[in-house]
């Protein structure tokens, strides 16, 4: 039951809340832009109203300017002081958000327009929380709020010691749904769900610490994720055990002295037999195709055409097609099925040798043609295997064939349960094994010996988001001749969110060629990851590299913000993440002394106000 009404104008909304004495309030809006716009708009409409707290707000703000000079130039400075209204979301600077939080706690603000990020982490309660939207924006579009998310929001309503009651007010909005809000409010909180996964860092560290895959697997199977699979495994085990009991009892009842294993052995043999029968060629055409698959190979001469006289020397074979050279020197491609006779010798496919091949076939073609298959030949092969299986079944079953056969459904159920148990058991561990194969490929780990290599040891110490990429950049000497500016650009390119745009600052040629090299490495790494079934890391972000390089080249903050057109909060996050990653590289003094020095220098420049 959606209510697709537009949001109330923010001034109207606040006036309504004020008339019921419901301020101060936190109003949750779906986007950063709506927060900023609403705060400005509401501030305009309230500017004229008398408010004795203006002086106090001004004083409060000024007391922060000393420590955080950047807030003085903030575009919402006036709105806050004159109207007591603020906007709060991840696009703002940490210092700005801190000031807002403190002012709210001090009772100096009437309203904060915020995105849901406020709900997590920072603590500034209000009397009222306004929810305008029953959905939230996520990477995958609009999604319904969960009970826990709404609870995080309503958790801000009602200040301990300052309010006897807190309020959650649902207000109209384009994604509003009062029915759903009502349901979510009374819903049980969501379960905590495991997000356990394999990472290069945890694998390298654990393997280096414990010395074998079995031990690392033991750790992985301690995870909450694995524990959650246990009920399923237990249930399958119960199914398996119940079927075993049934078999045992039936055997006892029939006084057959055979173990359960015999019944299961017969089931497996019967299973293999039916698979053989299914895959055996049923028609002459199938039998012939199989034969062609086996014999038509590069270097052989084959005959095609209705008369069977057109000869082709095969140069390449696809799954269902053939490419070759004809006697007149032209290339020919045709489907495997159209091949007639196949001649036994394998000739060279060098252009100057082709004539020799055709000459030989013309001279002795009759003797050289491979004998055509007959359906009965194939049948014969399959039949002898089937006879073998039948003999085995007979010898296993002995005189009790009938009883043992009657227990096949139970045996099949055991088989199936065991396969599923195996699969579930591997669920948590397998991704680690896949990571291990990728690391093995790049020489950080020896898969056969189950050992971390020397190279892997320093990679284990490199605690960054995408260690393998940074590791390969180091390993291939990309850091060798870098100055701090370029090192910062390089690291920022992967520290950034892949698709966030940090404007189009100029990059010098040296950095561009460096990033291109880096991109090639990234491609190589993700190709291997894809091959091994590891989720490949996202691409690298050139615009982030430019922003970080500029900052490290001592750009002014205001200019950087202006030129990147990025939101300040996003820029701070990018640069501080880059700084952190650089400090990790700086820690590799023993294995990469030069790179470590450069990285340290870059981090020191980078982590200056207002980034830290």
């Amino acid at each position, binding site marked *: 039951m959606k209510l697709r009404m537009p949001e109330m104008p923010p001034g109207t909304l606040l006036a309504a809340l004020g008339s019921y004495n419901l301020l101060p309030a936190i109003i949750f809006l779906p986007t950063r832009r709506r927060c900023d716009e609403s705060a400005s708009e509401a501030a305009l409409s309230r500017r004229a109203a008398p408010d004795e707290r203006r002086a106090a707000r001004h004083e409060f703000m000024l007391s922060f300017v000393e420590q955080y000079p950047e807030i003085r130039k903030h575009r919402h400075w006036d709105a806050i002081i004159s109207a007591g209204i603020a906007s709060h979301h991840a696009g703002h600077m940490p210092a700005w958000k801190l000031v807002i939080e403190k002012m709210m706690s001090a009772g100096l603000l009437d309203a904060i327009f915020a995105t849901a990020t406020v709900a997590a982490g920072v603590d500034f309660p209000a009397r009222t929380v306004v929810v305008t939207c029953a959905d939230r924006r996520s990477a995958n579009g609009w999604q319904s709020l969960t009970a826990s998310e709404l609870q995080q929001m309503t958790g801000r309503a009602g200040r301990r010691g300052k309010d006897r*009651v807190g309020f959650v007010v649902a207000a109209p909005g384009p994604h509003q749904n009062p029915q759903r809000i009502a349901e979510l409010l009374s819903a049980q909180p969501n379960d905590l769900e495991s997000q356990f996964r394999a990472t290069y860092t945890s694998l390298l560290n654990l393997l280096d610490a414990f010395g074998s895959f079995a031990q690392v697997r033991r750790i992985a199977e301690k995870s909450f994720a694995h524990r959650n699979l246990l009920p399923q495994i237990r249930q399958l085990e119960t199914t398996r055990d119940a079927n075993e009991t049934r078999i045992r009892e039936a055997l006892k009842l029939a006084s057959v002295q055979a173990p359960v294993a015999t019944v299961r052995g017969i089931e497996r043999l019967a299973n293999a037999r039916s698979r053989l029968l299914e895959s055996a060629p049923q028609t002459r055409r199938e039998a012939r195709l199989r034969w062609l698959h086996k014999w038509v190979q590069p270097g052989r001469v084959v005959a095609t055409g209705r008369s069977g006289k057109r000869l082709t020397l095969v140069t390449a074979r696809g799954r269902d097609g053939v490419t070759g050279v004809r006697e007149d020197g032209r290339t020919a491609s045709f489907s495997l099925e159209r091949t007639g006779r196949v001649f036994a010798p394998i000739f060279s496919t060098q252009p100057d040798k082709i004539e020799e091949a055709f000459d030989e076939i013309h001279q002795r073609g009759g003797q050289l043609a491979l004998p055509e298959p007959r359906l009965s030949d194939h049948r014969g092969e399959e039949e002898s295997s089937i006879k073998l299986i039948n003999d085995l079944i007979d010898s296993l079953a002995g005189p009790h064939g009938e009883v043992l056969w009657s227990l096949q459904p139970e045996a099949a159920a055991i088989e199936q349960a065991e396969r599923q148990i195996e699969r579930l058991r591997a669920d948590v561990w397998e991704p680690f094994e896949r990571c291990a194969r990728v690391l093995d490929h790049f020489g950080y780990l020896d898969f056969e010996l189950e050992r971390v290599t020397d190279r892997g040891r320093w990679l284990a110490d490199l605690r960054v988001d995408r260690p393998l990429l940074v590791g390969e950049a180091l390993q291939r000497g990309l850091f060798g001749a870098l100055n701090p500016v370029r090192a910062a650009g390089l690291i920022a390119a992967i520290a950034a969110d892949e698709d966030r745009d940090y404007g189009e600052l100029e990059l010098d040629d040296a950095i561009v060629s460096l990033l291109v090299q880096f991109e090639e490495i990234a491609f190589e790494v993700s190709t291997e990851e894809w091959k091994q079934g590891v989720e490949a890391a996202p691409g690298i972000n050139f615009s982030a590299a430019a922003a970080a390089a500029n900052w490290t080249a001592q750009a002014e903050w205001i200019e950087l913000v202006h030129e990147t057109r990025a939101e300040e909060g996003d820029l701070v996050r990018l640069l501080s993440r880059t700084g952190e990653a650089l400090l990790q590289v700086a820690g590799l003094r023993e294995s990469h002394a030069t790179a470590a020095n450069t990285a340290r220098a870059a981090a020191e420049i980078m982590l200056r106000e207002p980034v830290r």
Partner: protein
Amino acid sequence: MRRSGGYRKPDGRARDRTGSSDNSRRGASSRSVEQTPDGRAETVPAVTGNYGRELRELLMGIGAPKPAPLKPDPFQLEALTALEFEDVLVTAPTGSGKTWIAREEMRRLLELGKRAWYTTPLKALTNSKYAEFSEEFGPEHVGILTGDRKENSSAPLIVGTTEIFCNQLFDSLRGGEEVGADLVVFDEAHYLADEERGHVWEEAIILTPPRIRMLLLSATIGNAAEFAAWIAEVRGVHCGVVTRPGARPVPLRAAFLMPDKRLVPLLNPQAKLNSEIARLSEQDQRDRGSGGRGRRRRW
């Protein structure tokens, strides 16, 4: 500053907990009210006017309570008692005083010359806890470790991100320095379910040596008992669950603001959607049915 030197000495543990909490909590939270030139938060207007009975009931009691000494909730004391002999998972909504539990336990340990590690999921939170604890326990007793900040790292109380704590566990497993803590606190422990970073919490819980007492502070979750049972299995130490009964420290009421700016209760006495709102939705559907997509309601 209240305590410039060390921490205050307790006369007795139980008394200290109630006593000191009064001072520290009221000191922090009530001061701001007193200093605020905002008169509104203090006055409780009588809910009168032409409000209907429904609305009067909805707004009844709105405003500030009479100032009263903030006594610790029974669940806070229960958690502290449990921590003496087992790991504890505390689930309670934001603002109900989970941090108080951690702070009192850390105070006790510091007085005994022991050490503690306080982890948070966010840098901003780490910074604010660092400031809070530095004031509480004296800056010389508190250190901070984040990806880009390392101060007083040998202090008996370390505040830092969970990632850094987990890194220390990895290092100690690989023959590095032992993690020198007698208690680890996981603030916002429900971050375990965070898609990107949740795995770090799981690794940290699995790898923390059982000798280190564990206190997990989480928002309300559906499967607290199961979560605690897992922690106990993994660590071989019992993990108690302490939940705030009645969920919220300040009761919550739900309302809906009608397009004509009237406030109505969201729910009827049967806890179902107020029929007035339901009618509004139906009206909205009908309007859209007849008026087409382009028609928008005007305020």
